């Protein structure tokens, strides 16, 4: 029973990181109708910058800011410099360009920093706290939980309560009408990209201390998990990403804890396949007809 509580609560913390990353995929999908397969590589670049900032100043807050700013700038550069030039009648060229971007970024990171994993010591202790006699979350997990919740609530407020959020949503759902009503749709797409890559960078920065360390490929698995989550919830649904993230995080934690770590990828693949076959558009999919 103690073990179950520990596994579930760890799963919730991991799941929130996955949910954050999935949320970044949802933001970009809603803004630009593209699944950014380059998200993980871009986020890892931002986290390398955060590492440099951390090494130079020793301040974790500055490192987080560095990751956010670099992520946003990368999003800006990729959208303005690359994605805007992609022929856009079908989603495929965009996906292919994103994959090309992954290959370039990951190999350049490999050339610059080598295959070594750079460890990062978490800002808070990783040993579990006890509620009574039952071990639950560690301080770091609690920190991740709070940060993730703050970001999710913040994004919710931004999208649902602010003028910018209204414009973002309008530009994504009905670009032509929004343009007629004076929304600068291309700018909204760019802002969507910047928001999305900044959130992804934060998610990877939160993930790295709990894994082996930072490496060009350290977010690959996170991307697959987040994609699974985004699909579980439907690429259109932020709430779906949150719920899906928790489900996948707890599933991975339980399978790793009770069976073996090697089975976790298979469990995720099985979950993804099942959901896609039962509800091809995701569990929270809207009924709107779409081509992609």
């Amino acid at each position: 029973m103690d073990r179950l509580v520990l596994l579930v609560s760890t799963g919730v913390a991991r799941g929130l990181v996955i949910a954050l990353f999935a949320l970044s995929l949802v933001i970009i999908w809603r803004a630009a109708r593209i699944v950014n397969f380059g998200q993980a590589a871009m986020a890892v670049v931002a986290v390398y910058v955060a590492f440099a900032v951390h090494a130079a100043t020793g301040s974790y807050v500055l490192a987080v800011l560095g990751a956010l700013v670099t992520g946003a700038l990368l999003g800006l550069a990729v959208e303005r410099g690359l994605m805007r030039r992609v022929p856009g009648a079908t989603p495929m060229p965009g996906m292919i360009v994103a994959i090309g971007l992954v290959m370039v970024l990951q190999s350049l990171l490999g050339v610059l920093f080598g295959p070594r994993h750079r460890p990062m010591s978490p800002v808070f202790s990783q040993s579990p706290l006890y509620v009574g006699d039952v071990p639950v979350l560690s301080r770091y997990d609690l920190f991740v939980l709070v940060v993730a919740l703050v970001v999710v609530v913040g994004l919710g407020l931004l999208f649902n309560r602010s003028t910018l959020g209204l414009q973002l949503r309008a530009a994504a759902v009905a670009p032509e009408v929004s343009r007629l009503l004076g929304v600068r749709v291309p700018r909204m797409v760019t802002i969507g990209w910047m928001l999305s890559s900044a959130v992804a960078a934060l998610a990877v920065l939160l993930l790295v201390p709990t894994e082996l360390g930072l490496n060009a490929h350290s977010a690959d698995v996170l991307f697959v998990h987040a994609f699974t989550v985004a699909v579980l919830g439907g690429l259109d649904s932020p709430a779906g990403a949150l719920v899906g993230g928790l489900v996948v995080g707890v599933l991975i934690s339980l399978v790793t804890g009770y069976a073996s770590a090697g089975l976790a990828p298979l469990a995720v693949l099985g979950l993804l396949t099942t959901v896609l076959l039962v509800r091809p558009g995701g569990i929270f999919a809207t009924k709107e007809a779409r081509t992609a």
Partner: protein
Amino acid sequence: MTRTTARNGARSSTRTIVLRAIMLTVLALAATFALDPFRNYQLAVVAATFCATAGLTLLVGLTGQLSLGHGVLMAAGGYGYALVAGPAADAGLGGVGRFALGIAGALVLSAVVGGLLGLAGARLRGPYLAGLTLALVIALPAVATQVPGLGKDQGLGVPFEAVPAPLAGVMVVEQWHAWIAIVVAAVAVTPLVVLRSGPAGLRMRATHGDEVAARLAGISPARVKVTAFVASSVSAGLGGAVLAVVAQNVGPGRYSLAFSLLLLVAVVVGGLGSVGGAAVGAALVVLLPWLVDTVVSGAGMPADLEQRLSGNLAVAVFGALLVAVTVAWPGGLAGATAGPRARLARRRRPAPAPVLDPDTDPAQEPTSDPQPLTER
């Protein structure tokens, strides 16, 4: 276009395609005599890769289904071969019989995996299918370690195919393997070309162009997509079987995500939908990394830098190629040569009957025009 004329047209062009395939195969077999053993080994790997890229270009170019996991289908073929040929060798079977059994195993396993993926693909649109195949590639090492009988990380050994006695005087084993690879590639790719130039290819293009219109014309998009996936998968599986024979091993290490992405690079650079482009692309993705590594190791750099550059530099070049071709040169190599050829073909032949394929995407135009495809 009535049904009978379509059939007749398909039959005559089938004969041309088969004749051309036989000619190319004989040429390639003859060319192996001019190459040293290492070049023949590379030729065998190129031929095996070509099996996969030809299938992938058909899938992505004609039906618009983006698979990021074609390496998994190759792996399925390789494991299928090893799972059948291994026990056959233990039972004392050898020679052609064992090879044929192994190939049958590769066919069955890759067709099953491809069929399952195809069933998923028929229900899924663009990014969802790409994501599912991506998850499959990432999960492959876990499958190999968790499923009993797949030999964990090391993979399975594959019985050695020695040069048969009558040929033992004239060739070494690398050349024999190149022969095997070339013949298997011919057997794998020719049906794909026939499929593409016939009514099935037309149905695939129609489904890609406009699914609703295709449905109205009596085409079942689901069936078309599953067919395309199985055809593409079987071809990739044969390529995987050849790689297993050449390497005498099949394991998850070779079929990483990077490898699957290289297959995608090959078909995009070659030109989506073009089998000739897939051949050039296959040669590119096999030879360029080797070339880059040779140059890097010959440049006399510090060992640390050399180690970092090896592998990574080629991937960076491929990624840049992928972006550049998609943005600036969407037809790939085939698109670059398609314009003059199409003009030539139109001059030689009367205009084709109207087809189902609407000009939906100008970027895809050179590859989705049926006329040059039958001419190529």
